[in-house]
């Protein structure tokens, strides 16, 4: 996974509450069994006048020249709610989005972001409105946990230490966990004695 340090990019405003993963990528656009080939289906119901014809809707923000190279999305509350489909994050990543700034995120979506190099930045409504109004490039500094805009305004954001480390170092969480292999095995050995019914293979 590509490490995320700082990013200066165009931020596209898509400030609606409850943007769900069906809107980010409908199930009918998930045509592959892998993590790629999804960018075309990103926001298909909004991005195209007729999704099957792939004719861009000029009203949709990502189809406007000023936002064509956006790498940051500005969203509303409860961003990424609904289905757990990681395809939503894969589609955003493949399209080129590297951060989403929203007042709140659905928990599964936020977890999927940090495992795919997209920073879920939580800022309040006023900050997001100000970023949108500024209109210039937006700089996200993950180490400092700041978002800054052209006019010099800057906001701090919170992110969990582990999510930050995964994004910043591009760490593979599986490798990270397997460092505790011995502890995991010891737990399972003891738990099998205490709760043998939990372990399907020992019953079925």
């Amino acid at each position, binding site marked *: 996974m590509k490490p995320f340090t700082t990013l200066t990019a165009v931020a596209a405003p898509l400030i*609606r*509450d*409850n943007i*769900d993963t*069906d*809107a980010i990528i*409908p*199930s*009918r656009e*998930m*045509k*592959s*069994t892998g993590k790629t080939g999804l960018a075309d289906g990103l926001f298909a*119901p909004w991005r195209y006048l007729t*999704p099957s014809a792939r004719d861009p809707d000029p009203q949709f923000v990502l189809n406007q020249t000023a936002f064509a190279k956006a790498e940051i999305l500005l969203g509303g*509350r*409860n961003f990424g*709610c*609904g*289905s*757990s*489909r*990681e395809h939503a*994050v894969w589609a955003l990543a493949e399209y080129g989005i590297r951060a989403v700034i929203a007042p*709140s995120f*659905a*928990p*599964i979506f936020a*977890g*999927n972001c940090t*495992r*795919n190099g997209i920073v879920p930045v939580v800022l309040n409504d006023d900050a997001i409105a100000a970023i949108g109004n500024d209109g210039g490039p937006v700089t996200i500094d993950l180490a400092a946990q700041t978002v800054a805009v052209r006019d010099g305004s800057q906001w701090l954001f919170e992110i*969990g230490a*582990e999510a930050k480390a995964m994004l910043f170092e591009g760490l593979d*969480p*599986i490798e*990270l*966990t*397997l460092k*505790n*292999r011995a502890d*995991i095995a010891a737990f*399972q050995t003891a738990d099998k004695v205490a*709760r*043998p*019914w*939990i372990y*399907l293979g020992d*019953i*079925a």
Partner: protein
Amino acid sequence: MDHIVDTRPGRGDQTLMPGGQAFITETRAAARDAGITLFDVTDPDQGIVHVISPELGIVLPGCTLIAPDSHTCTQGAFGALAWGIGSSEAEHSMATGTLRLTRPKTMRVTFTGTLAPGVTPKDIILTLIARHGAGGGKGYAVEFAGDAIRALDMEGRMTLCNMATEFSAMTGMIAPDEKTYDWLRGRPYAPRDAMFDQAVADWQTLPSDEGARFDIEIDIDTSAIQPMISWGTSPEHSIGISGTVPADPPERPVTYMGVEPGQKLIGLPIDAAFIGSCTNGRLSDLRRAAALLKGRHVAPGIKALVVPGSMAVRRAAEAEGLDCIFTQAGFEWRMSGCSMCFYAGGESFPAGSRVISSTNRNFEGRQGPNIRTHIASPETVAASAIAGHIADPREMAA
């Protein structure tokens, strides 16, 4: 094998879902290579994962249960810590036997009072989400407690916990009790004999202690709840069925749904009706819908279908003759799967249809392009299908 499969009788690996057949055959090959049990398309135990896991006794109180599907919280009804994850987390769990997660805050929602006739667990959970918002449970593991919960059967408890994810909670759970143990006793994957008794002794230690403190508590009197229905494009856009669309609603959902501020929903004409899903596709759901449909017929021009949550539910319903009631009423009787809850199996209603649906999500386009979804209980779906417009099931009692 629930999201992708075709639900039309006579199905095989082929599905209308683009790339669906490849998904099915690749999943089958990967499961075989890894030695993982697969409840395959033609397996008698096939069904929606959150329906078949409890049927088979795979979920147990006190277990940690994850699946890459947001409605995994359904199984919190058994006192399990069950929640939905993404694919990368599923990969992590299979590689390491563990998951890394932040400890959630705790919330208890206590439901008191007795449900009025015609009011169901679906209406309870929609009431919670309508009152406290689709983001109201964010960051919390939620315990559903109180007399009204103890009174629910296991299937009702599953319906309630199912929509904890629509509340943005990490999970919803219910303390195990005798009803939980009775459900699990004798199920294929549940412990047997002396080990079952040993397990029950352990499960009895799981409920929250008297005086346990939660980060936040919510109390809801269920006796005043009426059948609920959604008017907009989030489950929080839900109202009592005799109510009206808010006077000053957000513009986008009103435009998408084609409703007016202050409008009554009763009487709004519908094009289609769907009964099924991990929320309301179990035997008790089908029984209650069939009770209303018996001797009646859906209104002219209404496309109606019922999709059992599992093949076991389908067989049990057929043994009671429910399939005949549904088909005589003009419903299609399907094989099990997720079906048109979200365009699964690649099928959809005609673009722009207004659909009343016993499912969990009324998002824009969830059921297909420009489809207007109203979520409600199976009873409300059945009553509305008969009437041809949104109708109050209490006025059409069996």
